[in-house]
């Protein structure tokens, strides 16, 4: 099967600190991979390298067939990353935010409406400013802007954090939809039972390395 992610000995440096100390990871198309490990293990950095955001200092590899050192910009336009931040403009309303993200990728008004409805952001919430939203509502906003982007590889960093049970269920439902639509997902989470139920494979990250489950 075709590999969507293939990292070999990746070292990545953040402010002089080796966030990743030699990561080997393969993810095949259609897989749902759960990254688990203690805080500071390097889960976020693995996701940021896959997204083409964090430069690779040593080692190398490909994401969606593109080189992680030389083709980072091309990688970015084909992946979706939900990080610790939601990428929202806090002075804009929910609709303004999602419309803006839609306009950067040329999504249609119907696609925007569908994504907002899917994330329960139509109705009253649509005209609320982002800085008045709860943590869970902001996550839904960020997910909706990811939906309009039609990413092939979904990278989710602690998507369940700070959400109540209903919010977590919603995230899981969106993930299942994405997978059944053919997307590949790499998700980091402390919610092992919940995320484990979705995952086709669990990968353990520690000390800036993959210590278990890096390849199939």
């Amino acid at each position, binding site marked *: 099967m075709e590999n969507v992610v293939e990292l070999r000995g990746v*070292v990545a*440096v953040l*402010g*002089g*600190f*080796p966030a990743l*100390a*030699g990561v080997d990871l393969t993810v095949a198309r259609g897989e749902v991979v759960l990254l688990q490990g*203690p805080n500071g*293990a390097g889960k976020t950095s693995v996701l940021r390298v896959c997204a083409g955001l964090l*430069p690779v*200092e040593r080692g190398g590899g490909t994401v969606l067939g593109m080189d992680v050192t030389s083709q980072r910009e091309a990688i970015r336009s084909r992946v979706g990353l939900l990080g610790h931040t939601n990428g929202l403009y806090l002075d804009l309303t929910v609709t303004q935010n999602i419309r803006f993200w839609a306009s950067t990728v040329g999504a249609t008004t119907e696609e925007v409406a569908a994504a907002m409805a899917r994330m329960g952001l139509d109705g009253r919430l649509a005209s609320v400013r982002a800085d008045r939203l709860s943590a869970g509502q902001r996550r839904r906003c960020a997910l909706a802007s990811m939906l309009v982007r039609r990413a092939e590889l979904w990278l989710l960093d602690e998507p369940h954090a700070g959400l109540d049970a209903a919010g977590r269920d919603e995230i899981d439902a969106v993930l299942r939809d994405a997978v059944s639509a053919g997307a590949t997902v790499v998700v980091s989470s402390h919610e092992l039972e919940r995320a484990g139920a979705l995952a086709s494979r669990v990968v353990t990250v*520690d*000390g*800036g*390395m993959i*210590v278990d489950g890096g390849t199939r």
Partner: protein
Amino acid sequence: MTPTAAHATTGTPATRRLGAVVAVLLALLVMSGLWWSAEDVVQGSTVRIMYVHVPSIWVAYMAFALTAVCSGAYVSGRSRSVAWDRVAGASAEIGVLFVAVSLVTGSLWGRLTWGTYWVWDARLTSTAFLFITYVGYLAVRRLGGTLRQRARRSSVIALLAVLEIPLVHFSVELWRSLHQEASVANPNARVELDGLMLFTLMLGLATFTALFVWLLLHRQRVILLEDTVADRGLDEAIASRRDEAGAR
């Protein structure tokens, strides 16, 4: 060349020979500038400042030109070799030093000949901007991040400076030309150079150029050593980062 920790010196036989030449030239320049050459008819001994002032600004222009060339080579080269960036950075540091020397010697000279340390002359003003621009460039070099980040950011800034400097110079020229007051005479032009004075000035230019090359070789090697140390530090940091996994 990759220096080892046991042999952490920035000198080579070639640079030591060059250093000796520079020392001899400096001694000659001091003798020629302070004793052998004659006083100027108008300026007296004051003219001797010229033998430091003019070579300083010459070196500074040369250094900034080299920074621009190396930055361009880094950006356009396929290899993206960080060595270009090290030379660019070393050269800019030396350039900033020598612009400072020429500003200080120039204002002392101005005090003696014009009675004032500073005039809002076009050349002085744009030289001051040159100084500030490259101080900013050096600040950008210290923003942190990896070597490649430093190289890319600073080379772009250096190339932007190449656009900025002619614009600043041109606008300052235009600004001063509007003012009809008697422009301050160029101090160099008022000097009637006899043979020995001209020789001393040329000797100054040669000496400072050699000094620049010598400083540049050493400085870029110091930067190379710093980068090597940072790289070694990374190896150790990677090893201890890996140990975190075992410790848990």
